[in-house]
C-alpha cells in the first residue's frame, strides 16, 4: 500500500524557475508551488504536473528540453540547485527522481549558462553550437562499397572499450554548464578521442582535431583550466583522460599536419 509507506508520501515543493520569453528578453526567476508530487516521479514528470496546473490557470507553461526520458538521448538539461542535472551524480535530469528531494524543499531551476548556448525560451537552450563542432570534423568519411565483415578490421578489445567509453557522450552539455569557464573541452575530447582511437578515424585524424577545436573556439566556449567539474558532473562518466588525449592530438596535429 503506497499510502502506508512514508517514503511515498506526496511532497509539496517550492520551485524557483527561470522564465524568459525569448533570447531578447532579460528573463527572471519566478516562484511556483509544486504540490502533491509523488516521490516516484522523475524530475521532468514533476515539471509536467506543474505545467498542467499552470496551463489551467492561464499561465504559459515552463519550456524545457526533453526527449527519450530514458537517460540516453542527451536532450534534457536543467541546472538544478546549483548543479547540472541536479544533485545526483551520473544521472540525467529525466533519471533524477523526486525522492532525492525532501518535502518542503525549495528547488532553483536554471538553464545551462553559456554564451554559445543562447536561451530559446525559459529553460530551453540552443545547443546547435555542438552540432557545428561535429560538422567541422566529428565524422568518418564513408567508404562506399560492400559491407565489410564484422571482424575484418582488427581492433584490440582494450582500445575498443576506451573508444566506446568516449562514444557514450550524449552531448547534453552538462560539462559546459558545470565548467566555471563554460568550456566544451570534455565534449570535444570525447568526440575526438573516440575517432582517433579507431582505424576508421585515422584518415582524417589530424585535420579533424584542428577543425573541431577551431570551431569550438569560434563558437565562444571558454578554455579548459583542468578543474574537473565537467567529468564530475557528466551523466555518462566521460573522464578527463579524454581531454589529455585531445591535447595530445592537438599538439601532434599542429606539429605534423599538412594544414599550413
Amino acid at each position: 500500500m503506497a499510502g502506508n509507506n512514508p517514503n511515498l508520501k506526496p511532497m509539496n515543493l517550492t520551485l524557483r524557475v527561470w522564465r524568459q520569453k525569448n533570447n531578447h528578453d532579460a528573463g527572471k526567476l519566478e516562484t511556483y508551488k509544486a504540490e502533491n508530487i509523488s516521490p516516484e516521479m522523475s524530475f521532468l514528470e514533476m515539471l509536467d504536473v506543474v505545467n498542467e496546473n499552470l496551463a489551467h490557470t492561464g499561465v504559459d507553461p515552463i519550456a524545457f528540453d526533453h526527449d527519450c526520458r530514458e537517460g540516453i538521448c542527451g536532450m534534457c538539461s536543467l541546472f538544478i540547485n546549483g548543479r547540472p542535472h541536479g544533485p545526483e551524480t551520473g544521472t540525467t535530469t529525466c533519471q533524477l527522481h523526486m525522492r532525492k528531494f525532501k518535502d518542503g524543499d525549495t528547488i532553483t531551476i536554471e538553464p545551462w549558462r553559456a554564451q554559445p548556448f543562447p536561451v530559446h525560451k525559459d529553460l530551453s537552450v540552443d545547443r546547435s553550437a555542438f552540432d557545428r563542432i561535429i560538422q567541422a570534423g566529428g565524422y568518418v568519411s564513408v567508404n562506399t562499397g560492400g559491407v565489410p565483415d564484422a571482424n575484418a578490421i582488427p581492433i584490440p578489445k582494450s582500445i575498443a572499450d576506451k573508444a566506446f567509453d568516449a562514444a557514450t557522450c550524449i552531448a547534453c552539455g552538462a560539462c559546459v554548464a558545470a565548467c566555471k569557464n563554460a568550456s566544451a573541452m570534455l565534449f570535444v575530447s570525447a568526440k575526438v578521442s573516440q575517432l582517433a582511437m579507431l582505424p576508421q578515424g585515422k584518415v582524417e585524424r589530424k585535420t579533424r582535431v584542428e577543425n573541431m577545436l577551431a570551431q569550438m573556439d569560434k563558437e565562444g566556449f571558454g578554455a579548459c583550466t583542468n578543474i574537473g567539474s565537467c567529468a564530475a558532473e557528466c551523466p555518462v562518466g566521460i573522464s578527463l583522460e579524454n581531454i589529455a588525449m585531445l591535447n595530445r592530438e592537438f599538439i601532434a596535429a599542429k606539429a605534423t599536419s599538412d594544414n599550413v
Partner: protein
Amino acid sequence: MSWFTKTFSSSIGRKIVMSITGLFLCSFLVVHLIGNLQLFNNDGGQAFNVYSHFMGHNPVIRVMEFVLLAGFVFHIWDAVALTRRNKAARPIAYAVNHPEQNSNWSSRNMGLLGTVILVFLIIHLYNFFLPTKTGGLDKVMIDGVMVDNLYIRVAESFKIWWYVVLYVISMIALAYHLMHGFQSAFQTLGLNHKKYTPAIKGFGYAFSIIVCLGFAAMPLYFFLFK
C-alpha cells in the same frame, strides 16, 4: 594567419604556453630556494652575499634573468587572454551555483591566487632586486671584492611584522596555486596516464608544500630568531 599564430592564439595553444612557462617558473623556484638557503648560514651573511653577488654578475645568470622575465610575461599575458575568453563564455551567472560540490577551491581560483603572487612579486622585486641594480645598498668587502650587502637588507626587512605577514600569506597563495598548477600543466601537455599521473599528483603536492614552506621559513626565521 599562419599556422603558427593560429596555434598559439587558440585556446589550447595558449594553455600549452601556460603549462610550459608554469613548469619553467617552478624550476626557477627550486633554484631560488636552494640559493636562498644561504640565509640560514650563521656567518653574518657572508655566504649569502657571495651568492647574490654571483647571481648579479654571472653572464649566464644575467641572460637567464631575461628568459625568466619572458616566462613571467608569457604566463601572465596568456592568463589574462584566457581569463577574458572564459569570462565572456558565461556572461550571465547562475543564481544558485555549487561548484564546491564538483571541484577544488584552488583550481577555480588560479587567477585570484596568481594576482596575489604578482602583487607580492612586485613588492619583492622593489625591495630586494631593484636596489641591486640602482646601487641602493650598503657595500661590504668579502675576499678583497666590494659586494652589495643584500643580507643586511633582508635581515632588516624580515624584522618588520607586516612584511613577514605579507610573505607568509603570499607563500600560502603560491602553495595553492602550485597544487593545482603543477599537475594541471601535465594534463595540458597531454600527459595523463594511470602509470604516472598519481606520481605526478603526489609529487606536485609535495613540491608545492615543501617549496613554499622553505620560502616562508626565511622571514619567520629572521623575525623570530635573529
